[in-house]
């Protein structure tokens, strides 16, 4: 099964796809989100969101600045103010 991952900035919807795992730089430490994660909300610090498309694949890094992450029933949503790369 896959995790639905969305990365949204004020300017546009950057990503909306199904991935294996995403590692988010939370304010109190990095956390990985897999499918079926419990509902969770955290602010994020500036850093890289690592997206693992499939198990064991090399992560794709997306630099984000300012925002927060929300895990709900429909997957992970990262709201970031700025996205680079």
């Amino acid at each position, binding site marked *: 099964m896959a995790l639905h991952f969305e990365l949204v*900035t004020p300017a546009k919807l950057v990503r909306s796809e199904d991935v294996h795992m995403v590692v988010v730089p939370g304010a109190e430490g990095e956390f990985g989100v897999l499918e079926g994660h419990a509902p969770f909300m955290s602010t994020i610090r500036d850093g890289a969101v690592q997206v693992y498309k499939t198990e064991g694949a090399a992560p794709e890094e997306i630099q984000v600045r300012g925002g927060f992450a929300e895990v709900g029933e429909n997957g992970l949503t990262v709201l970031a103010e700025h996205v680079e790369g």
Partner: protein
Amino acid sequence: MASLKELKGRINSVKSTQKITKAKQMVAAAKLRKAQAAAEAARPYAERLSAVMASLAGKVGGDSAPRLLAGTGSDQRHLLVVVNTDKGLCGGLNANIVKAAKAKARALIAEGKDVQFYLVGKKGRAPIKRDHADRIGQQFDTSTVRNPGFEEAEAIADELVELFEAGKFDVAHLVYPIFKSALAQDPTVQQLIPVPAPQGEAGTGGDAVVEYEPDEEAILEELLPRYVKTQVFGALLEIAASEQGASMTAMDNATRNAGELINKLTIQYNRSRQAAITTELIEIIAGAEAL
């Protein structure tokens, strides 16, 4: 009666005006499409943010709520953030925004409140200055950038939050037009600070217990300035779309008016030409008969 040469000159000058208005109309139509797309693209972020805000604001209530949500406890000093365009040629758009802002200011002053203005965009300055010269606080210049984007919204919101934290005002209202169609842009007044509790379905995950990291209050504290930014950003997008829409309509009218004027002048020109030819013929015939 104007001479033939004069008429010709006028026809030519109206024609070149028409060319300008036509070009501006087409540019506005193209830009409108872009502005609408930008407004569309910003919607998911705003929607998610207000959903989260709604669920959080319900949980953090009472005394522990941050000042941006709860307010200063007084509503004596009001700040009107008026968003105008930087360029003209867009019909009555700016006049309507200023009218709405002035009406709000008058209502507040009648209630005995203090009113200050914070102006975004160039075109609102002069008309507001005429009535409220001493009430204009800060201005934000958006004319240096081509498309005011999130950077500008961020700068404006940061400045507003700073002023609020410094205790310069109690309530802020945002005055901007809502883009309905190319023909209609409604100026609206919306409360910005303190943040009105968003109405939305509380909680995104139904009844599931959501874990917060750090805690609800800390997240809310971070979220509120962000929410203000999003609101300002939304206003900037609306004004961009409204400007292009209003400009398109105004220029369409101008082009049509110019066309009518050209027709009228052309008829006048032809009549005078005919009259001149007739007079000339009569002169020649009269001359021939005299021989």
